[in-house]
């Protein structure tokens, strides 16, 4: 029996570890599950999950080990900076890579032949939100609040372009990090500038603080708060409490409480099987981790265990049309082709209800505008 390596390197500790630890757990558990199911006959799956502490030097070392020493069939990445930094090496080594960062720059040429985003990019997520706003109110004034990092800044340019075309205005772009104990100034300025929509590209913590302050300042009714994938979910409602009410979130994943979806059933089953804490299993990042692992393993399965990069690339770019892969974690199937490096590009907008659960307010959809402002 031959052994094939799939390696993940991400932040189990350090910055963004709240997401990273669950993400890593998802990768690890899905792999064990796949092995137990003998998903790839004749192959022993060797899934390695390593903590790089959000430190790019560690990421590169892990990459070298996976790819250089263990001939990994796929590299599962995590951080924005780490992935961007690795692009030329990924290209050179022809390593199939699925980052945890949905930065569109990851799949922008050059050096992007082997990189595939599991779900739609931050840009597309945010533009979907802008489209929603534009549909609701022409000429609406929107403020962007982004994380002070490459991760946060990634979609800003695309969103600005899209807004112009959609006939809404981005009044302000603000960076807010994890230490925002008080957002009075920010919100008051938005208020006086007539902002009615605040779109966040951030992690849940800073967004929760903004929501709580907005509630205190009686702005929740007057401003609609929204955000991309890493802003929402359980984390947000836990932190913001009832201030999260009505928050609109865009993501491609199914929610934990959509128990009828096969992907969520699988998440619950696997999570229980490997005795994860409830918080982990409920976390959307756990699902995300399972998704990338499932894509890599599916590709390997389709190569019949041939983990070579040519075979893997063929398998992945073949996931299109009737050959699309649908593990059920996301609202749409995972489709890739030589031109299409985004997997589950359909997404939904969801809105938090009074109990803190996110309920879909749109069906699965794609952003029409995104393609226009960011042609490949």
């Amino acid at each position: 029996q031959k052994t094939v390596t799939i390696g993940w390197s991400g932040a189990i500790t350090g910055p963004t570890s709240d997401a990273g630890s669950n993400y890593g757990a998802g990768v690890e558990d899905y792999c064990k599950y796949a092995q137990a199911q003998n998903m790839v006959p004749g192959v022993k799956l060797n899934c390695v999950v390593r903590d790089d502490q959000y430190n790019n030097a560690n990421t590169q070392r892990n990459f070298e080990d996976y790819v250089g020493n263990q001939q990994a069939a796929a590299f599962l990445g995590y951080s924005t900076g780490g992935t961007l930094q690795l692009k030329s090496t990924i290209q050179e080594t022809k390593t199939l890579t699925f980052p945890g960062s949905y930065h569109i720059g990851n799949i922008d040429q050059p050096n992007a032949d082997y990189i595939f985003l599991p779900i739609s990019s931050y840009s597309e997520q945010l533009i979907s939100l802008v489209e929603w706003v534009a549909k609701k109110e022409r000429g609406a004034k929107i403020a962007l609040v982004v994380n002070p990092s490459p991760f946060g800044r990634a979609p800003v340019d695309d969103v600005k372009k899209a807004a112009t075309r959609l006939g809404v205005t981005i009044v302000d772009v603000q960076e807010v990090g994890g230490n925002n104990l008080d957002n009075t100034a920010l919100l008051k300025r938005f208020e006086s500038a007539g902002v009615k929509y605040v779109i966040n590209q951030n992690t849940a913590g800073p967004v929760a603080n903004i929501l709580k302050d907005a509630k205190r300042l009686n702005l929740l009714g007057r401003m609609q708060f929204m955000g991309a994938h890493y802003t929402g979910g359980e984390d947000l409602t836990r932190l913001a409490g009832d201030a999260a009410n009505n928050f609109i979130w865009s993501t491609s994943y199914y929610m934990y409480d959509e128990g009828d979806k096969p992907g969520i059933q699988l998440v619950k089953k696997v999570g229980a099987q490997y005795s994860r804490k409830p918080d982990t299993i409920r976390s959307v990042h756990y699902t995300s981790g399972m998704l990338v692992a499932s894509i890599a393993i599916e590709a390997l399965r389709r190569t019949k265990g041939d983990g070579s990069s040519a075979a893997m690339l063929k398998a992945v770019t073949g996931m299109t049309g009737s050959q699309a892969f649908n593990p059920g974690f996301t609202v749409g199937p995972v489709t890739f082709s030589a031109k299409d490096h985004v997997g589950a590009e359909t997404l939904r907008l969801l809105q938090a209800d009074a109990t803190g659960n996110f309920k879909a307010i749109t069906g699965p959809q794609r952003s029409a505008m995104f393609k226009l402002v960011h042609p490949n």
Partner: protein
Amino acid sequence: MPASRFTQTGNYRTGYRQDQTIFATYAEQASLIALLLLLLLLPQLLPKTVLRDVNMIMIYAVAVIGLNITTGYTGLINIGQAAFMGVGAYATALAATRWNLPFFVAIPLGGVAGAVVGTVVGLPSLRLKYLYLAVATLAFQIIFEWGVGHSPLLEQGGAISLPTVQVFGVRDTFLNHNAFWYYLILPVLIVLALLWRNVLRTRHGRAMIAVRDNDRAAAAMGINPGNSKLTAFMLGSFYAGIAGGLFAYFQKAVVIEDYGLHISVQLLAMAIVGGLGSVPGSFLGPMFIVALDRIMEALSQKLGGANLFPAGVDVATALRPLSFGLAIVLFLMYEPRGLANWWRLARLYFKKWPFKF
């Protein structure tokens, strides 16, 4: 002169010039040559992943020598060394991508940029003492990170990729990446370490130490404390800048997170564990911290798989910060002079061997 230079019982010094030499005894000179040979062959002897760590250690060592110049020898506590590395890295990246300069020009330019910025940041040291200066360097670290994040020229901290390097027809590829850079970093490190050892034997080095020990007395000796402090900052951040330039190429792209506060802390830890104000310590410290991290990583990998602990308790992830912190604390408590002191004791032992007393 004894009949044979090799049978004499010691190297007798008959002039002050001889007293100045760094490698004085024949034993020292012989071991130096052996060491150099070993260093040349190292890439052939080491597994590739370890070689990567060796490269990291050498880059850190350059930065730590620089940190020692400001903090160890001159006593100016610097919590922003990673930012100076960052200055060098970004300067190198700009030189390489905007002006298409070759790496052997771009990296020294990084050093020069580090030195220039370092001198400016050092200006408050003319007035500030002790902790107040430490906090000023901390402020610089934070302002630097923020500034890069707001600078479109620097991709707002996103990746600036560096061109692939070619030397004597050999290209830097994934397969030879570590060995390739090993042979480039090693001579840089050796030269930089020797240059600093030279400074230490001269009035400039002594003046820095004097300023550290007692700046008023130093002034009474005709030393301009401000000059010495600025020189220290300039040299120290020159080294940091070179380290940053090397790191940029070694990582293939410059990303702001690589030059954050935690790296500054790590560099300080390396300097402390190695032994503040010691050149061998500047090598031993990075070695120790990197090795410790690798061991702990391996250990947490093992523990993580073992499911020994109740759900929700993540021993594996706690190990690295815990061991890093403990290493620093224990060293300071029980061996404040750092590994350099062990090194010294070991050398004394071998010098006297087989006579142990």
